């Protein structure tokens, strides 16, 4: 793709995605999105922008690949252990006093964060009265998420993260090895519902006591971030919590006056309606 015109081309493709498929990426940060699209263009060996665009416009199956490749699905279990330690020691015990706990993991990708939360809930004896709604824009990653199978080579890192996050059990008890894959115990997904949800265009679908949306907003521009925070505010009970990624904040947003940071990590509590 011609470097000089690539920015224009990107806007054309975003227009196509919205017009033909109803996917709105226009609120995404351009630098990262552009890098992902150019990467896909090279990876799939297109020879011209026209050919790339034609394929996207006419081949709905290829468009699925487009979505899968331009959104970022890199994740880990217990990534940023300090955050999970705060969930374990401060937030979830507080929510444990409720009769029923509803958690939304927004932008869950292949499910590692949702399963990490499920493990902590289980260890706190709260899993039975909890429901985790794990959503993502991308239906393919959700299929992977519901399979609960991850490369066994990752387990060493996950186990280290788990211990750093205050885990006290034997992490390997949570999965069974199957050749090169580790399959998480079924119990861990017994309370999780995986479903597609597009933060850029869909509304609130339930009310929660905890919303986790970590390293998702960094891909959105400020306007879309504001919109997403308002969606979260609409979806959060009073005194509920929002957890964000380690470089994200809601301080700039219109909802910030209702929220108070309650932990040394990125967790805020809703203190007024």
């Amino acid at each position, binding site marked *: 793709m011609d470097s000089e015109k690539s920015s224009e081309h990107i806007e054309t493709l975003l227009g196509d995605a919205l017009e033909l498929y109803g996917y709105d990426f226009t609120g995404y940060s351009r630098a990262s999105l552009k890098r992902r699209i150019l990467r896909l263009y090279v990876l799939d060996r297109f020879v011209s922008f026209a050919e790339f665009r034609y394929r996207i416009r006419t081949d709905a199956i290829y468009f699925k690949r487009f979505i899968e490749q331009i959104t*970022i699905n890199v994740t880990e279990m217990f990534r940023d252990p300090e955050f999970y330690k705060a969930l374990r020691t401060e937030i979830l015990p507080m929510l444990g006093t409720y009769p029923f706990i509803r958690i939304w993991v927004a932008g869950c990708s292949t499910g590692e964060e949702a399963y990490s939360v499920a493990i902590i809930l289980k260890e706190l004896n709260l899993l039975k009265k909890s429901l985790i709604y794990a959503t993502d824009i991308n239906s393919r990653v959700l299929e992977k998420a519901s399979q609960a199978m991850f490369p066994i080579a990752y387990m060493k890192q996950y186990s280290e993260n788990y211990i750093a996050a205050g885990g006290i059990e034997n992490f390997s008890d949570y999965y069974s090895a199957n050749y090169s894959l580790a399959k998480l115990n079924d119990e861990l997904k017994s309370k999780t519902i995986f479903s597609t949800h597009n933060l850029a265009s869909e509304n609130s679908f339930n009310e929660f006591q905890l919303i986790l949306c970590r390293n998702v907003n960094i891909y959105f521009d400020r306007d879309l*971030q504001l919109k997403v925070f308002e969606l979260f505010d609409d979806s959060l009970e009073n005194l509920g919590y929002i957890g964000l990624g380690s*470089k994200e904040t809601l301080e700039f947003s219109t909802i910030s006056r209702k929220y108070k940071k309650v932990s040394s990590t990125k967790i805020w509590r809703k203190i007024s309606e």
Partner: protein
Amino acid sequence: MKQCDALIIGGSAGSLDVLFQVLPFIKSDIAFAIIIVLHRKAGNDSILPGLLNFKTKLQVREVEEKEKILAATIYIAPSDYHLLIENDHTFSLDRSEKVNYSRPSIDVTFQSAAEVYKDHLVCLLLSGSNIDGIEGLKRVKYFGGKVIIQNPESAAMPYMPAQAELNVDVDKILPINEMADYINALSQF
């Protein structure tokens, strides 16, 4: 060369010591931002900005996402994120796959900045034993920016700047003791 709006410094093994030697001599009224992308182990600690703060009169900040890029400020790429530059001269962060086994990757920042700053960009590649940064420097040249490298002979790990010298049309090769003067002079363009 047009006026320099941003100097991006990329470094890997052996580069922190170079920064400790050079930053104390950078003037506090430079007309451009300094953006530093260093390879280091992922972790929640943000000790690097503190360490560098001791060495300079300039303000040192670890990048916050969507932050506006200002002159006479030193920005540090946070660990475990790629750092990109938007057209409106704000930062974006990205937690996608590692590039050249690195996150932050120097290539990612150089490539992203190359298109935004074009001939208002200077990139400096320091010591390292990786090839991260080389592809990025090619983009910087393509868009009219300026490429300088640490003299490999003065580098604790010469491989990275040596690869740049072999593969990129480098504008200037600098030993450590000439870097501060060169950087200060970029304000005069």
